[in-house]
Each structure stands twice: as structure tokens, then as C-alpha cells.
């Protein structure tokens, strides 16, 4: 027994519950057609022999009946031949039709079934001694007498017309279970330029259009349908073969243009979502050669297996099919002196897609660099691929020995590729319309570059320096050459890097050493931040992360850093200092405030704001209620429970006060005194916008004091700074701007890790598993990979005034 057989046999023992749960709803109408026959007579004591005997008897009776009725066959045949001019009869198979009546389930022998029609063949015109033909072994007749064939009983063959023998056979591919012969199925065959054949099968649709399926017969004898070439065409006349010298180069579809067909057999296993017809690039692959001046070499970019996306852009789906090569000018082009994968910003590992608009020009140029120390053959090859309104230029270098892609050196420019020129010093320059001239310095000897997009690097350095000087840190956008990345300081020398083009956070934990990168999904350019231990030196670098970094794959991170650190080093020789923020809430120039819609509250009517209020208690109750009634983990409640378990009084209440304070910054649940707000509205210009604020009835100072009663001053400022536009002081009163926030995730499980617990400090991590709203909020450990996971860190410290939250991810809105 083979392993496959054993496996299938083992599957047969699967739990009955599982089998039942996954059983198709087969009492469905469509299965009725399968009820072709059923024994009518159940033996008194059913046994196998009796059932077989019954069948043999019936079959014999049926055969006899057919013989008796054979006189009618010629008549029926002649009628049908007239009806179906295109139907060829070349074989006979004996079978029976059966009753469609589910209730009686009796074997039904039809009055007359012309044996010859039960097997049908329809050939195409002969081409070069061959024809394409559609064969059905078991056609049946409808009540109206039309022959109908199950798709699974039919096949498409390429046959030798002289002998009638099939050369190759393939499954018939349609989008219906059955098809009717009388509806004008059409077959077309043409010899192609690859010494093979292309066949087209046209199945009529109810709409009057046709479903066209291409078939490919290759020179090596393989034959199959091309499922991705299927398409609906208006009429048969809309599709013709596109004949050029040497055979068909493709097909022409009226109104759509010329298409090439695939030259190889495509199977279902290739799950390409793209149409396999090649628009306008039929039998030729794209190859662009570029003379490398001063050498006897060409730099060439080759794109093979090109498909065309729905937006008519070229798509290359395999890294092997898009290459940059070096080959001799006078050779046959096959001699290869170096080959590298062509990479652009469309790169995705494991799902390699190079896609670009056909309207843009795809180009390659090469510069021979003549600076000292450079080999005479040293060349820099630039490959420009249209990217939206710009070029994405990838840079390769060749030194006569090897070709190498210069890591991550993408350039986006609206200028022609030719505008990137050699500076004669081993580098290239190009003009950037946004930032002015930039120089790319290449160290071609080692094939590494010592700087990249220097303007951005400098800008990033400035930002980093600002961050370091602030001591608190918050988001800075940094363009790493592959999308906007956001660098955020999380405290404790820990950073979060969020590539904005993608959805998942990447953790670059840099407490002296890189510990982990958790890019849970997606690929792209990420920023890595590292502090060299103890020197106060900051090293940051861009990194093209083309790894699939699962959680905890520190090896990957380490390798990546090892590469990246060599690339850019920015020195910051100053220890981090703590410089607290000023009050981040808006203290507007009162002369700029315009009071509208009523009068401000008189000072004596203002109340004192407190985080220790009914709302906080309600959150506590609500959290418990939610957790109890939904039978799942509820983050807030669980955090509270966890804090209780630490044996430190008041931590849970502290947390919920923080939760309450945080919540009112992001929801439209305004803090209001005395059951409602006053009637005044003030408008305040903030930056280039104007906000309208509502009075809260609380004093401004009490609100700020409430925050400082829960958070450390530093962290309170950080949090408030995020929403600085939400609060405003006018007179003594706190004014507030309704905010709105919302998530689309539901937390289903949470894990904790206590990192530190001393008399003065508690640090713990949480790992939260979420499902999207609307999904079943049930946690199943076996399906960990399906959840959206977020990591949160909490740090609570003892101050002179008691415990305060010094850091809390969940209150900080990273995105």
C-alpha cells in the first residue's frame, strides 16, 4: 500500500462528528441529477448476489428492449443528423438512462435511445493533418430529445485525422456541469509558432455569448486546457487566430486587441489569479538590451512568462522570470556572465509580483564608471520600472566578475532614467524635484553602498537627535526608501517601527542588543534602531526586510542588523537626558478665542474633576459584566485581575482610572459636570485649523491634576500630547472637543508576562489576541495564527505621591 493510499484509508476513520459537520448539503437540487437509477425491488433479505442478479436481469431486459426498438434508430438518427449538422457519430456505447423521479426510484429504460448517439464526437477543421475534437462517451437525451452530456464525461482531444486516433486528451473545462450539443459548440485549431497547436473551445452561454477555453498542445506532446485563458466572448466571429509568419502568434479578440496564448501547458496547480493571455506580447518575451559602453557586454533585462493584469499592466509572477543579466554583445546572447533577480518595489517574497503599467516605458541603462580603483568593466546598471507616476529605479553593479543588486537602492524619480548620470567619482547623481540634487555614493569594490538617499538620512538623523534630546520620544516619520515608516519610542530603549504601507508592527527591541523583530506579516522596508551598549551612540539604518519574520526569530533580526549597521552610522554622542514636556494641553491666546453660541460658565459654577468617580467604577463593573457574560477574556478586566494578583493594593483601581481618563480622550463621551455642558461654544485656531470646543463644567486645573494622580508627569504629558487638540483652557474652565475613535477588533485572549516586580517598580507585558468584529470571539489555541496579535507593555512605578503608571501601550495609540 502506498503512503497516499494509507493516508486516504486513515482519513476514512475520521471522527464521525467531523465527517457529519463537513458533509455537503447534498439534499440539494443539483444532486438530484445524480439519481440516475436505483433498484426498485429490495430483496427480502438483501444480499450482494441478489442485487447483482437483479441488475443483470434488468440490463438484459433493457438490451432486449433496445434490440426490439432498433428499427427506430435510423429514423431518429436521420432527424438528429439534420438537427445537428456538426455532430459526428463515430462510436457506440450502450448505457441506460434512468428516471429522474426520486420518489419511485425505478430503473427507467427509455422508449428509444439511438445507441450511436450515446457517444458523440465533434471535430474541428483539419489543420496540418490534425484536428481538435470534443468527445462525449455518455450523452443522454433530454425529454425534448436533445443530447446532453455531463462535462465530466467529455474530453477534448487532438487527433490525427487520417487515422482517427487521438494523440492527446484533456479534460473538458467548462463552467457548467452539463452542456448541450445542439447549441452550437465550436472548436478552432491553429498551429502555433512553437511547433505546437492552440485550440479554442467555445461553449454557448444562455446570454448568447460564448465561453472560450484555450487548449495548448506543446511540441513535447503535452496537452491541457489553460484555465486562466477562459473568457467570455461576444460571438464566434469576435475571435480569430492572429497569424504571423510561421504560425499563430496569438488570438485577436474584437474590441480587445491581440493576445498571445501561453506556450506551455497550464495546470490547475498554478493558481495564478491573472489572465494567462498575454496582451500584446504574444510569443516574445520582453527583453531590453543596453550597451555597456567601453566593454563588449550588454546589460539585459529579461521578462519571461508575462501575464497581463486586469488593469492591463504587465505582471511577472516568478522571480526567475525577471532577471538582469550580463552577456556578450557578439555572442548568441545565451552566454551569461552574471544574473540577478530583478527587484522593484512591487517585490513580495513567496508571492513575487513585478507589476507595472504597460503605458510606462520600461528601460535599462548602464554607466561605465572610470574612476580610480574601478575595473574597466565596472558598470552600474539602472533598471527603471514605471511606478505610478514615477520610476522605481533599481541599481545593479557589475565589476567584470559578478553582478549584484545594490541592496535597497531604489530611487523614485519623475525624471527619465537618463537623468541619472555618473559623477565620474564612482557615484551617480540624479535630480530630485522635491529635495534637490542627491548623490548616491557607491562603493563598488565591495558592492555595498556607504550612504543612501543622504538627504533622508540626514533628516532622519535630525529627527532622531530631537527624539534623543527630548528623552520622551514620539512618532517621527522616516522615509526609508520604501514607504513611510514611523519610529516611536516606547521607553526603556525600546522602539516600535511601523511601516505605514503595511499593517503590522515591527518590534526592534534595542535594549543594548537587538532581541527580536516581530514583523508578523508583510514585507517591505523597515527601520531598525539600535543603541550600541553603553556608549550613548545611536546607530540607525534602513533595512530591506525580505524575510518572513515570525515572532521570536531573533536570528533573522540579528542578521539583518549585521547587514544594516554597516550601511549607515549616525553618531549621537550625547547621553539621553530627561527633558519634560511643557503642559501639552492647549493654552490658547484668549484673544484668538471666539465665543459663539452662548455664554461661558461663571467661575463659581465650575466643579472639580476627579478620576475617582462613578464612571471609573462603571468601567470596572462593565468589564466584569462583559467578561462574565461573554465567557471570554476581556482585556480591561483581565488586566485588573492580574494587577490584583500582584498583591499591591490599589493597582487595579489605578489602572481603571487610567482607562477612564484615556477613554475620554478618544471618544465623544465628554467629561461633563452636573449632568451636562453649558451652552457656550468657543472656536479656537490651532495650527491651520479651527476647532470648536464645548465647555465641560470642570476646572482646567482639576482635570490636569486628575491625570497626574494616575500617571507619572512624563507619561501623562505624553498621552495628553497625543490628543492635545482635544482639550482647551478658556478662563478657568476645561473645554473639550468631541473626538471619535473606534476599532474593528475584539479581544479574545490575553497572556501576561511579569518582567519586574520590586517595591518601586512593576513591569509586565501582555500579548493580546484579537478577532475582527463580527467574527466568532472564541479563542482557540490551535488557531493562534489566525488572530491579530498585539503586544502591550505596562510599567508602574512608586513615586513620592504613590503608584503611578509610567508607561502603558494600551493607552498610547500607536497607529
Amino acid at each position, binding site marked *: 500500500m502506498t503512503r497516499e*493510499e494509507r493516508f486516504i484509508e*486513515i482519513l476514512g476513520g475520521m471522527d464521525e462528528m467531523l*465527517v*457529519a459537520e463537513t458533509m455537503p448539503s447534498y439534499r440539494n437540487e443539483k444532486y438530484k441529477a*445524480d439519481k440516475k*437509477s436505483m433498484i426498485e425491488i429490495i430483496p*427480502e433479505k438483501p444480499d450482494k448476489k441478489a442485487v*447483482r442478479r437483479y441488475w443483470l436481469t434488468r440490463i438484459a431486459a433493457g438490451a432486449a428492449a433496445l434490440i426490439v426498438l432498433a428499427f427506430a434508430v435510423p429514423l431518429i438518427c436521420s432527424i438528429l443528423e439534420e438537427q445537428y449538422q456538426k455532430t459526428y457519430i463515430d462510436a457506440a456505447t450502450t448505457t441506460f438512462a434512468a428516471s429522474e423521479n426520486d420518489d419511485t*426510484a425505478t430503473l427507467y429504460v427509455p422508449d428509444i435511445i439511438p445507441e450511436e448517439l450515446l457517444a458523440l464526437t465533434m471535430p474541428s477543421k483539419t489543420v496540418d493533418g490534425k484536428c481538435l475534437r470534443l468527445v462525449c462517451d455518455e450523452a443522454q437525451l433530454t425529454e425534448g430529445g436533445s443530447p446532453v452530456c455531463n462535462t465530466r464525461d467529455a474530453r477534448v482531444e487532438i487527433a490525427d485525422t487520417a487515422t482517427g486516433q487521438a494523440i492527446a486528451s484533456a479534460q473538458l473545462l467548462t463552467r457548467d456541469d452539463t452542456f448541450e450539443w445542439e447549441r452550437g459548440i465550436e472548436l478552432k485549431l491553429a498551429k502555433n509558432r512553437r511547433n505546437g497547436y492552440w485550440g479554442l473551445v467555445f461553449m454557448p452561454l444562455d446570454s448568447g455569448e460564448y465561453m472560450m477555453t484555450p487548449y495548448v498542445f506543446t511540441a513535447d506532446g503535452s496537452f491541457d486546457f489553460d484555465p486562466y485563458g477562459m473568457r467570455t466572448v461576444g460571438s464566434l466571429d469576435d475571435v480569430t487566430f492572429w497569424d504571423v509568419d510561421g504560425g499563430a502568434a496569438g488570438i485577436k479578440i474584437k474590441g480587445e486587441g491581440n493576445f498571445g496564448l501561453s506556450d506551455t501547458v497550464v495546470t490547475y*496547480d498554478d493558481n495564478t489569479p491573472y489572465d494567462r493571455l498575454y496582451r500584446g506580447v504574444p510569443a516574445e518575451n520582453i527583453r531590453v538590451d543596453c550597451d555597456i559602453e567601453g566593454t563588449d557586454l550588454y546589460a539585459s533585462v529579461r521578462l519571461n512568462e508575462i501575464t497581463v493584469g486586469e488593469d492591463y499592466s504587465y505582471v511577472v509572477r516568478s522571480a526567475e522570470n525577471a532577471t538582469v543579466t550580463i552577456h556578450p554583445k557578439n555572442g548568441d546572447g545565451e552566454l551569461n556572465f552574471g544574473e540577478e533577480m530583478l527587484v522593484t518595489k512591487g517585490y513580495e517574497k513567496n508571492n513575487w509580483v513585478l507589476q507595472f503599467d504597460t503605458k510606462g516605458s520600461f528601460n535599462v541603462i548602464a554607466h561605465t564608471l572610470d574612476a580610480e580603483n574601478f575595473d574597466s568593466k565596472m558598470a552600474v546598471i539602472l533598471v527603471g520600472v514605471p511606478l505610478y507616476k514615477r520610476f522605481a529605479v533599481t541599481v545593479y553593479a557589475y565589476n567584470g566578475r559578478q553582478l549584484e543588486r545594490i541592496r535597497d537602492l531604489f530611487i523614485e524619480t519623475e525624471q527619465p532614467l537618463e537623468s541619472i548620470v555618473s559623477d565620474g567619482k564612482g557615484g551617480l547623481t540624479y535630480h530630485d524635484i522635491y529635495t534637490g540634487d542627491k548623490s548616491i555614493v557607491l562603493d563598488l569594490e565591495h558592492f555595498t553602498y556607504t550612504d543612501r538617499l543622504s538627504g533622508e538620512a540626514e533628516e532622519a538623523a535630525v529627527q532622531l537627535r530631537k527624539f534623543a534630546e527630548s528623552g520622551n520620544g514620539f512618532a517621527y516619520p522616516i522615509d526609508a526608501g520604501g514607504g513611510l515608516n514611523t519610529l516611536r519610542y516606547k521607553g526603556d530603549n525600546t522602539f516600535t517601527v511601523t511601516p505605514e504601507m503595511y499593517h503590522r508592527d515591527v518590534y526592534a527591541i534595542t535594549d543594548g542588543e537587538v532581541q527580536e523583530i516581530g514583523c508578523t506579516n508583510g514585507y517591505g522596508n523597515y527601520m531598525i534602531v539600535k543603541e550600541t551598549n553603553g556608549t550613548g551612540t545611536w546607530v540607525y539604518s534602513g533595512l530591506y526586510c525580505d524575510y518572513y519574520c515570525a515572532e521570536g526569530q531573533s536570528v533573522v533580526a540579528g542578521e539583518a542588523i549585521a547587514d544594516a549597521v554597516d550601511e549607515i552610522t549616525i553618531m549621537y554622542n550625547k547621553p539621553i537626558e530627561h527633558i519634560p514636556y511643557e503642559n501639552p494641553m492647549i493654552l490658547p491666546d484668549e484673544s484668538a478665542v471666539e465665543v459663539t453660541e452662548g455664554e461661558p460658565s461663571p467661575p463659581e459654577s465650575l466643579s472639580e474633576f476627579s478620576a475617582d468617580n462613578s464612571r471609573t467604577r462603571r468601567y470596572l463593573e462593565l468589564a466584569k459584566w462583559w467578561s462574565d457574560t461573554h465567557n471570554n477574556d476581556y482585556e480591561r478586566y483581565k488586566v485588573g485581575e492580574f494587577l490584583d494578583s500582584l498583591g499591591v493594593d490599589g493597582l487595579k483601581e489605578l489602572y481603571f482610572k487610567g482607562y477612564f481618563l484615556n477613554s475620554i480622550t478618544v471618544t465623544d463621551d465628554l467629561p461633563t459636570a452636573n449632568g451636562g455642558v453649558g451652552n457656550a461654544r468657543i472656536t479656537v485656531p490651532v495650527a491651520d485649523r479651527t476647532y470648536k470646543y464645548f465647555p465641560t463644567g470642570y476646572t482646567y486645573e482639576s482635570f490636569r491634576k486628575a491625570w497626574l494622580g494616575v500617571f507619572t508627569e512624563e507619561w501623562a504629558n505624553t498621552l495628553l500630547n497625543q490628543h492635545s487638540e482635544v482639550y482647551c483652557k478658556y478662563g478657568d474652565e476645561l473645554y473639550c472637543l468631541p473626538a471619535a475613535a473606534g476599532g474593528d477588533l475584539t479581544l479574545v485572549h490575553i497572556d501576561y508576562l511579569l518582567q519586574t516586580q520590586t517595591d518601586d517598580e512593576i513591569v509586565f507585558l501582555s500579548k493580546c489576541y484579537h478577532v475582527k468584529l463580527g467574527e466568532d470571539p472564541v479563542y482557540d489555541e490551535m488557531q493562534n495564527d489566525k488572530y491579530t496579535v498585539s503586544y502591550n507593555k505596562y510599567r508602574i512605578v512608586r513615586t513620592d505621591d504613590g503608584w503611578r503608571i509610567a508607561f502603558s501601550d494600551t493607552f498610547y495609540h500607536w497607529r
Partner: protein
Amino acid sequence: MKDSEIIELYFARSEDAITETNKKHGSFCRSVTFGILGSREDSEECVSDTYMNVWNAIPPKRPDRLGAFVVRICRNIALNLFKARNTLKSGGGYGSVVFDEISECLPAPDSVESTAEANAVLKAVEAFVRSLSREKQQIFMHRYYYFRSCAGIADDLHISEAKVKMTLKRTREKLREYLEKEGIDV
């Protein structure tokens, strides 16, 4: 008629039990056997044999789910016939295709130390299937338990055929990884 009522007919040794079983589950059994064997005649023979087996099995057995019980017997009979006729890899139906696909699920023979007991394999596969989403479970089972065509599965689940194929491909890869991780060879 409800499954429980049909089972009672078997216990009463009423021949109507087979008629009712056929009415309710026959078409699907044929679909499964046809999927494996690709021959209507063979399919009918398997279904007839199935009823014989069910008749002989009930009583004493009293299956909780008659449909699953019948289909399981039917599937096993069809697979035995499939093997007996040496149609593996060359026969009709989806059987040979499914066998080809199954080979993708299995760890390389030398990637684990020894061949696992059937029960261990079964438990592992069951655990794997249960870890899948409901839709993926259905797609996997329809294909490898019921030997259904991708088009049929797509039609049943109201999803595209391409999605069925993609899901199957990914599930096979995951299963292989899972079995490798569990150290299970077949």
C-alpha cells in the same frame, strides 16, 4: 424521513430501511463513489454493496449520524474497488487526482524517524482539520474525504473555484508542515 426513523426501520429489519436510506443518502453516495471511480456502473455497484453493509451492520450498531455512517462505508468500498482494479493514478474520477494531491500533504519519508501508527496519524489529522476554519474544514473534507471536484465544492460553498484550489493548496502545505512538526510520517 429522519435518520433516526430510518435506523428504527433497520432495527425492525424492514426492507424499507434500504429504500429510505437510498432516498435520503443515495445520491450523495453515488457522487462520492463516482468521484473516486469515475464510472457510473462501478459507482452503482459500490452503492449497492454499501446498503448490504449497512443492513448487516445495523443492528447491532446504532450510528449517531446515519449519513456519515453510510458515506464512510460507501467511501471505503469505493476505495477498495479503486485499489483492486489497479486504477490508481490512471483511473477516472477525481480519485487519481486526489491521490496525487495527497502526496503533497505527506512529509518527506526521511524527515521523521518512523512511520506513525494509524491512530496517531488520524488523531493528528483530526486535530489539524479541527484547527481550520469552518470553510477550510469543509473544503478539505469535501476534497479528500468525499473526493469531490473543485468545481462542485465551489458551487456548494458559494465561493470561486480558484479560491477552492488556493485553499486546498495552502491547506496541503500547512498539513505537511504540521505533520512534520508533529514528527508523523504515514
